[in-house]
């Protein structure tokens, strides 16, 4: 089954509109490889094997060969050839964009995603060579967890939705390299604030780059320049600056522009105040009201299970909150609720600032407070048994 699932993802997907650049339109070979989408390939392969059912195959090499032969017969190309063709296409894609302009440096390097894409394409080629030498390293679990996974080194982004006050810093990692602020905001507390007398700088996400992660061989990235005026820091290394720009600016902005506030990520803070963070006029962004609000309310099971607790405390009233009488509500969902805003305004400027501006973490809310704020209560079905 693993070979079938993997092979289903291996169809090169047709490009129906040529890639475009706003600088100038370029020609790139347009491919039409027919219906090679994962769903089509999956149903094609499963249908093929359902026609002649047989007992499960113990030998993974035999299983891979059977699936590969089925791919050749159904889709015209074997798995290796299909990835190879896609690799070549991706390489010409990178080359096309590399020619668009000279490689940027300094702050501008953060706005150039091509060094990072080029790095990923090279890393991909190395993974492909491993796959070609032994497909079982990807098509069996054991091959994957024993030999492939231990060699993978993705980048990590540490999100702390509560907000970490700078410049105290954080110590999530003890590894060399540096935690570099990705989403940081300078917040202005209310004038009457007793707890926050001065404007504060807050980091919601940091990234710890390591030498060699993502397959790069870059050394000497230790010089980090923090440019607090711009609200972002940048790395004096074009490759890492490209990554930092993608993580902190281009990818979150891509999600926001494509999906509005309905885009869900591990931290909601990244969607907040984009025009201001970029120094742009708010009025340039015309927000469709349907995508401005995002209701995200769920059962608390995963939250309680992670902490290994059967009960916790309601973030509003402090009452005991259990799997059966409480719900997990996103920070944006709370902030967009006028009853919640009114409630915290009445409790004082510091409460309002702390809970509705500074802290973007999820809320655990008891049923009584859900009803008080008229928040919709998700139903527990038989498919959602109460947590173990």
């Amino acid at each position, binding site marked *: *089954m693993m070979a079938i699932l*993997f092979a289903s*993802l*291996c169809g090169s997907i047709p490009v*129906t*509109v040529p890639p475009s*650049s*706003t600088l100038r339109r370029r020609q790139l070979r347009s491919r039409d490889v027919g219906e090679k*989408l994962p*769903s089509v390939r999956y149903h094609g392969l499963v249908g093929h094997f359902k026609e002649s*059912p*047989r*007992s*499960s195959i113990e030998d993974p090499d035999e299983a891979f060969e059977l699936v590969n032969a089925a791919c050749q017969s159904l889709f015209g190309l074997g798995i290796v050839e*299909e*990835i190879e063709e896609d690799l070549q296409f991706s390489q010409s894609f990178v080359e096309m*964009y590399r020619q668009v302009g000279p490689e940027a440096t300094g702050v501008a390097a953060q706005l150039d*995603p*091509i060094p*990072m*894409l080029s790095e*990923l394409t090279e890393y991909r080629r190395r993974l*492909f060579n491993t796959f070609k030498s032994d497909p079982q390293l990807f098509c069996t*679990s*054991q091959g*994957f*967890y024993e030999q*492939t*996974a*231990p*060699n*993978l080194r*993705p*980048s*990590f982004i540490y*999100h702390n*939705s*509560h907000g970490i006050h700078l410049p105290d810093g954080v110590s*999530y*990692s003890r590894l060399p390299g540096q935690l570099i602020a990705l989403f940081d905001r300078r917040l202005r507390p209310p004038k009457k604030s007793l707890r926050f007398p001065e404007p504060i700088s807050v980091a919601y996400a*940091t990234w710890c780059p390591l030498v060699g992660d993502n397959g790069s061989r870059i050394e000497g990235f230790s010089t980090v320049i923090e440019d607090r005026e711009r609200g972002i820091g940048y790395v004096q290394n074009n490759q890492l600056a490209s990554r930092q720009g993608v993580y902190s600016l*281009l*990818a979150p*902005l*891509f999600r926001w*522009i*494509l*999906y*509005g506030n309905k885009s869900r990520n591990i931290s909601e803070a990244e969607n907040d105040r984009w025009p201001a963070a970029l120094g742009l006029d708010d009025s340039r*962004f*015309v927000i*469709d009201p349907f*995508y401005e609000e995002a209701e995200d309310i*769920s059962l*608390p099971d995963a939250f309680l299970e992670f902490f*290994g607790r059967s009960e916790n405390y309601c973030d509003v009233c402090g009452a005991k909150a259990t799997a059966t009488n409480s719900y997990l509500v996103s920070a944006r969902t709370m902030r967009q609720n006028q009853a919640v805003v009114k409630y915290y305004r009445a409790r004082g400027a510091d409460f309002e600032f702390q809970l509705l501006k500074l802290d973007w*973490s*999820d809320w655990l809310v008891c049923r009584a407070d859900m009803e008080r704020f008229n928040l919709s209560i998700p139903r527990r079905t038989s*498919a*959602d048994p109460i947590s173990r």
Partner: protein
Amino acid sequence: MFRVIQIDPETLAIQLNAGAISAHSRGVDIFNFVDKARVDGILSPLLAANSTGDMDLLSFGTSYLHELRHFADLLLTPFGFYRIRTAFEFFKNLPYLVFVSDDKIPVPLMSGMDPITRAAIGLGAGFEKSVAYRLGSTSFSRVRVINAENHYDPANSSIRYGGDRILEALAYITQFEFLFQKCDTPEARHHFSSFFHLFEGSEFDLAYRWFIPDCHKMHPVKPCQTIRS
């Protein structure tokens, strides 16, 4: 939706809910686990957690393994890399849209593609000549493929097992088979009960192991070993 660890399919960065981990009684150990996995690779800290029966670290570590499977599949396979390429094409053009042009930018961009919605949110007729419109047209021709792939039709409850579900199935199998092959103890079966439970069409089953009925049809004589409870 509460998440502790999650891959970003557009950048391949692994995102950690550091705030929640910090609040966990084993938070320091979990952060140390991440460090060890980044230096030595995932297998050795996972096996160490298993050998001491540390369910907190095993739970976090196998979730990390799940995300690593996504990382490899997104990077290597044409469907996965299509998602990355699509995003980077947008990233490359984004600075021109935001910093160079003066165009109005609808959020989401899709709302500017449809003339009725466009009028409703107050974008003028000239929008079709803008950079935002051109970029939106290209992006939506790309994203449409991903969305159509993962379309769910509530009218007839039909689920197309598209790219994203297949990615989840591969990550589930890897995570489950590590548990089954390396950590098959009564305590692990209790702690990871959703993984070891018989298939019954629950939300968990439909999200991660929806392929099991197909598996039975292809191998009717001897069911897959991986689904024995």
